[in-house]
């Protein structure tokens, strides 16, 4: 059996293994892989996501078990130190020798660290591996302990530098991006787009310093600042270097392979180095005198090397596409083809809107027929399709400017459909999946969802940038089969949420398993159970107590589960109005059960750290004091935030607190596709942030303005104006209808903001439904809402008063002991769960 040794288990090295073992002929080789990092290959492209959950497993490209299953011997934590070409062997840092028939170098690259005076100081980091990120995180924690306003600089304002800037910001430090060139992302952007991007980034709190050469790193032992010369300095406690990459070509040098003048192991279009038994792929390979710092070309190199070893004549293409769409930084940025060029090479059409932070440029050939490249900042929605037009030389429409400013009149999209692309068009460049392959997967292999197509073809599994286009292709292909894309909530119900809602209502079903028997298949799962539970709740207004095992965790025990398996307790404090007596009662109860207390962002009090068996005891006492459940755990009304309003405030136009209390009591207990929140402000100064809520009222001269579809959270959005200057009763009527209509038609876990965005016709359509009764359902909506309001009951009261429900609150069913695994540590004057292991 012949042996292939792969040096480097990074993204490209892994892809080589995956491609080799997927081929029948590939299974005849013994595959031995060395990786210097302490873990199996992971998704470096999404490295920054590590900051979100610090879960290295989530980035893994394949679990260790995958290597074993495929007979790949992976040795991690072991660097290869030498190649002996004459004996065809390698040696490792622990001095072991292994023999190969084919050697594949996939050693990637390392960050380039410029030789600046003081660069060795503590607090200077590079950004390439999980270990780099862990080191940065713990250093940032250290900084924040002494200085809450800690600052960090990023050296380099390229693609990666901006991503690092965002990461530093997420760590709670003030980011300063320092770039030597006079513009950001010098290779991808022209100066005007760089200006637009700079303004937008600055508005998010990122500081940007252009045209600065760093002379020296200041500090005694650890970094305290950067010196740009001429008394120009910047004080920072941390520095992240992102000044380009250098290939890890040391193995090539030691065994005298042909090298590039500025590094990199030279390869030909077979990915062969100057020694035909040695291949180099990924960021270590110098092809066409270039190092390509992107995964897509690396993956293609892996494909070529696999084919060459299996003696198939597949060659690397000549022109490598370097188009990119930036991810993660919160601003759309993309560039493709030749992003900018002098006028003799082509003509440009530029659209710029500084107020919106949008810049788009496309470069067109002199005859106006082909797209040569372009730049998009602030709005890159059409990137994929423009990129495809460029790659596939699709002829341009007569008025090429429509590609960036949109078509005038109602002539439809200037792009035509994704279906017009040629079959060879590469849709997913990470995995090299063509339009033909995607469509064939639908038309011939019977895959009917994006998920199924992704599984079968691997499209979308890289950077994910092609997802919208794959979704379009799936949808259009299904149409040609006469099918429509069915939104099914999961494998157990072949229906959308709206369809299920109607079925439950029409057939008057109120038992999950009855529904499953009648219209579902199988036994259900964690997706359909809570979705159906919410539908029952919205139609019959039943509490979560009756069918507790189909509820989401929080609903099942009527409390929010916390990181250590304890729960939090949040009583309702309508409108944020609370009496001193109630405050004292909460204080006493919290003290008695040793709970951590905090004022929430929703103007009420959260008590954390209650053990499962304590919940009914705590609620019993709260209920005695006149409190009700706050349903902080439910997909239901949370809070209606209020400002103090005209009762006290000198600017108040009306009594916002009274209105908020009334409205919170009106909607409390109502369950919906997702949680919903309200706000009431006494004047347009908007201290209650009503426009950041699912529904909001603002008192104005002559009545109340009604807003709907706002969102804080992950994608903040201001609510839209539904009606102006209406009286309270009218305001309530409109919001009743709005909520009821949302409850009936939204998808599971869809907040009102994305729901409204997807609603065809948008706010105008909604106005027609709720104000002008265009669908003739207003009466029905009114009655349904009133029925919900009238049937409210506090589910915690029900729980503590019903012995069978109370019995659920025990950690063990065969012992009175409590969970010995729960541990708390001190936090200021209170406590918190111990850290996760």
């Amino acid at each position, binding site marked *: 059996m012949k042996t292939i040794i792969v040096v480097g288990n990074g993204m490209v090295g892994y892809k080589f293994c995956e491609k080799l073992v997927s081929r029948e002929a590939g299974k005849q080789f013994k595959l031995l892989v060395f990786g210097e990092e302490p873990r199996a290959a992971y998704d470096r492209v999404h490295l920054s996501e590590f900051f979100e959950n610090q879960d290295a497993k989530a980035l893994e490209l394949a679990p260790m078990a995958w290597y074993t299953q495929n007979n790949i011997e992976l040795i991690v934590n072991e660097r290869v130190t030498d190649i002996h070409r004459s004996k065809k062997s390698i040696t490792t840092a622990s001095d072991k020798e292994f023999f190969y028939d084919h050697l594949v170098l996939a050693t990637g690259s390392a960050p380039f660290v410029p030789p600046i005076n003081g660069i060795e100081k503590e607090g200077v980091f590079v950004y390439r591996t999980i270990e780099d990120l862990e080191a940065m995180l713990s250093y940032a924690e250290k900084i924040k302990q002494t200085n809450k306003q800690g600052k960090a600089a990023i050296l380099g304002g390229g693609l990666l530098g901006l991503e690092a800037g965002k990461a530093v910001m997420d760590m709670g430090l003030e980011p300063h991006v320092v770039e030597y060139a006079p513009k950001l992302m010098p290779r991808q952007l022209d100066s005007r787009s760089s200006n637009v991007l700079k303004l937008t980034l600055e508005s998010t709190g990122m500081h940007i310093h252009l045209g600065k050469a760093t002379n020296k790193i200041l500090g005694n032992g650890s970094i305290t600042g950067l010196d740009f010369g001429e008394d120009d300095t910047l004080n920072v406690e941390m520095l992240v270097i992102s000044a380009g990459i250098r290939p890890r070509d040391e193995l090539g040098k030691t065994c005298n392979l042909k090298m590039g003048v500025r590094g990199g192991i030279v390869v030909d279009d077979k990915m062969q180095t100057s020694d035909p038994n040695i291949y180099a792929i990924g960021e270590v390979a110098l092809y066409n005198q270039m190092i390509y710092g992107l995964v897509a070309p690396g993956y293609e190199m892996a494909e070529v090397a696999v084919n060459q070893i299996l003696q198939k004549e597949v060659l690397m293409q000549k022109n490598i596409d370097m188009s990119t769409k930036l991810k993660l930084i919160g601003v759309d940025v993309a560039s493709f083809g030749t992003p900018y060029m002098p006028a003799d090479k082509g003509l440009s059409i530029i659209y710029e809107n500084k107020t919106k932070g949008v810049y788009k440029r496309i470069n067109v050939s002199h005859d106006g027929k082909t797209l040569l490249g372009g730049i998009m900042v602030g709005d890159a929605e059409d990137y994929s399709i423009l990129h495809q037009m460029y790659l596939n030389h699709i002829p341009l429409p007569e008025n090429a400017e429509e590609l960036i400013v949109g078509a005038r009149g109602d002539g439809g999209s200037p792009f035509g459909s994704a279906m017009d692309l040629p079959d060879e068009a590469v849709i997913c460049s990470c995995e090299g999946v063509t339009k033909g392959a995607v469509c064939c997967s639908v038309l011939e292999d019977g895959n009917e969802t994006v998920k199924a197509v992704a599984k079968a073809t691997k499209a979308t599994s890289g950077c994910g940038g092609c997802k919208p286009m794959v979704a379009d292709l799936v949808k259009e292909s299904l149409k040609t089969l006469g099918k429509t894309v069915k939104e099914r909530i999961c494998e157990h119900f072949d229906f959308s949420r709206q369809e299920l809602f109607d079925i439950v209502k029409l057939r008057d079903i109120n038992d999950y398993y009855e529904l499953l028997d009648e219209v579902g298949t199988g036994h259900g799962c964690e997706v359909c159970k809570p979705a159906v539970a919410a539908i029952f709740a919205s139609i019959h207004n039943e509490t979560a107590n009756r069918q507790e*095992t189909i509820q989401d965790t929080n609903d*099942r025990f009527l409390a929010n589960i916390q990181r250590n398996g304890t729960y939090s307790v949040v009583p309702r404090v309508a409108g944020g109005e609370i009496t001193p007596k109630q405050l004292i009662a909460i204080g006493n109860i919290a003290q008695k059960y040793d709970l951590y207390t905090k004022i929430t962002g929703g103007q009420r009090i959260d008590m954390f750290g209650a053990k499962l068996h304590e919940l009914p005891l705590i609620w019993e006492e709260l209920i005695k004091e006149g409190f009700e459940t706050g349903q902080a755990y439910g997909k239901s009304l949370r809070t209606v935030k209020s400002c103090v309003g005209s009762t006290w405030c000198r600017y108040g136009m009306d009594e916002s607190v009274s209105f908020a209390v009334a409205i919170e009591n009106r909607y409390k207990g109502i369950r919906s596709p997702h949680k919903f929140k309200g706000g009431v402000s006494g004047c347009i100064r908007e201290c209650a942030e009503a426009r950041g809520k699912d529904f909001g009222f603002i008192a104005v001269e002559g009545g109340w303005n009604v807003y709907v579809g706002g969102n804080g959270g992950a994608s903040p959005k201001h609510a839209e104006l539904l009606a102006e200057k209406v009286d309270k009763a009218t305001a309530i009527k409109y919001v009743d209808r709005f909520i009821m209509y949302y409850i009936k038609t939204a998808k599971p876990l869809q907040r009102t903001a994305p729901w409204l965005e997807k609603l065809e016709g948008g706010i105008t359509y909604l106005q027609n439904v709720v104000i002008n009764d265009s669908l003739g359902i207003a009466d029905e909506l009114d009655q349904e809402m009133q029925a919900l309001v009238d049937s409210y009951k506090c589910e915690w009261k029900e729980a503590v008063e019903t012995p069978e429900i109370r019995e659920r609150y025990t950690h063990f069913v065969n012992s009175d002991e409590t969970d010995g695994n729960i541990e708390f540590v001190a936090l200021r004057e209170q406590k918190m769960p111990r850290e996760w292991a």
Partner: protein
Amino acid sequence: MISSLKTYKTVTPDQVKVWFNAAPVSKFPKNGGACIKYKDKQIAVFNFTREGRWYACQNLCPHKMEMVLSRGMIGEENMEPKVACPLHKNTFSLENGKHLNGGLEAIATYPVKVEGDIVYVGFSE
């Protein structure tokens, strides 16, 4: 904490030495789970009423090492019974413990039998 994972090893029916009398059937919610204690172990026991089957596994979720799996929602994926952890919705097969939506270590599973009104869980020690 990691060491507590070692407390839990899958027991196959042929390895059972002790059939532990866990609790009467009525103590377990229909189509849901509850936790029992056996020596120093916390075991999640699931009553798949609809299918007429029972499963048991460690209560410890290997993701963040919390004793929570018994409070997770149960369900089925391609006819394989599973439990979703209440904390971050990692799902595990109850047939073989395999992590279904990621690459975490498999959890330990235990045989269950019901005789008369009593639920028994099988242990090897």
